[in-house]
């Protein structure tokens, strides 16, 4: 077993706020897939918000501190080497905090001061490695390992893989990406494509994989968000997709909600289903639709998946 594969067998799990609310099906399916694959998730004790968008907009260094606290708990209290964050926002913020602490003395000073005030160990850059759920499965199990564990198949389901804007941006906080064969690409990410192809999906050629879904302005400027989402959905449908696979709770709920809103507000009905990649993997691993939370999605794909013989 390679060093990375061994390291990812047991990781600290940082679900983040969204996975306890609107993205509960992502939480459920991530844990179920981990169990089915024999990968251990140990939830970060007493975790806090990563700083999300709200804190970052007002005080970026406070966001760095909040993310550092999560990593500090994983490193010093739990003695873990790896933190896995399935949410793109959390993943992005922890990576950004890691970068800031390694490169900005002022950030390190603020984090040290706030950590002492809060009474926990100060996180030092490099104590843990933050990964996404895609990295976890791709490197913790790999395509061959996944293939061996499949109990079913996605049976040629046509999938547009949508990664969103935070999984790859900004490039400098993801030094492990763009490192040649085997590594993730920031311009054309492919980890989700790779895993779902092994599970029997047919990935369509989808040019808006990392395009903005307007998630940050979903409340303050809903019409723009709806138009952006509608355009993404139209592109997926034009590419022949039956399903858009997601790996970010903000993107996922935005796609689901604005798909409904596009029909109500603009009379633009679309049919494509929105499903987390972990739900699709779970079904291919032989888990039931309820075990992966299909019933918890707003985008109702239960009948569709049954008709396809997948659920």
């Amino acid at each position: 077993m390679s060093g990375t594969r061994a390291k990812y067998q047991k990781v600290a799990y940082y679900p983040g706020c969204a996975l306890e609310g609107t993205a509960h099906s992502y939480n459920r399916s991530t844990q179920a897939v981990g169990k089915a694959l024999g990968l251990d998730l140990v939830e970060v004790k007493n975790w806090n918000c990563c700083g999300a968008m709200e804190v970052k907009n007002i005080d970026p260094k406070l966001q760095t501190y909040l993310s550092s606290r999560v990593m500090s708990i994983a490193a010093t209290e739990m003695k873990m080497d790896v933190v896995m964050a399935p949410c793109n926002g959390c993943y992005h913020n922890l990576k950004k905090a890691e970068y800031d602490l390694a490169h900005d003395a002022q950030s390190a000073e603020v984090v040290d001061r706030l950590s002492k005030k809060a009474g926990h160990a100060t996180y030092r850059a490099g104590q843990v490695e933050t990964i996404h759920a895609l990295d976890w499965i791709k490197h913790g199990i790999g395509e061959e390992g996944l293939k061996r564990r499949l109990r079913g198949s996605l049976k040629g389901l046509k999938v547009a893989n949508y990664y969103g804007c935070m999984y790859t941006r900004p490039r400098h906080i993801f030094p492990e990406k763009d490192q040649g064969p085997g590594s993730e690409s920031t311009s054309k990410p492919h980890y989700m494509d790779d895993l779902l192809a092994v599970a029997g999906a047919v990935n369509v050629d989808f040019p808006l994989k990392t395009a903005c879904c307007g998630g940050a302005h979903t409340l303050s400027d809903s019409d723009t968000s709806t138009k952006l989402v509608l355009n993404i959905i139209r592109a997926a449908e034009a590419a022949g997709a039956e399903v858009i696979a997601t790996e970010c709770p903000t993107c996922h709920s935005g796609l689901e909600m604005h798909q409904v809103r596009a029909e109500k507000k603009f009379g633009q009905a679309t049919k494509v289903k929105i499903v987390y990649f972990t739900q699709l993997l779970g079904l291919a691993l032989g888990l039931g639709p309820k075990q992966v939370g299909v019933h918890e999605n707003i985008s109702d794909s239960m009948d569709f998946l049954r008709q396809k013989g997948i659920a």
Partner: protein
Amino acid sequence: MTPLPDIERRLASFIETQDLHVEDAYELLSLGESVLEQWVAAKGLEPTRDTREGFRLLALHRQGCTDEPSFNACRETCRELAYHYNLVTLEPQHADTAQRLRMMTLVANHLYLFVAGKMQVHGLGDFCCASRPLRQEAATDSA
């Protein structure tokens, strides 16, 4: 420069039609450039005539990112537009040309929606999550 409402109308007509031709790739690329020209000009700059990797579109995007890291969120959209332009114009007889043009239309439309939304929400403020004006305001308040 083509005004944004005109760009929107033209893109909408491309989206509606099923009858796309190879020559439309030139106009779609040009519409993309027009969108970025609007953004650059709104920032008080003269839109560049330079090219990057053979495309003025990519040079305009680069120019649009000046002091505006969040504008990088449309980098891949610009590159996809250039990529589809190449696909269509270098292989006009390809069986997938109609589909590639359809995709190019939606990619161009996404660029328009992103940039127009960005300009609309806060004048020239930030559309996506790196809301620089808010941070600047906070920094001013605490000074």
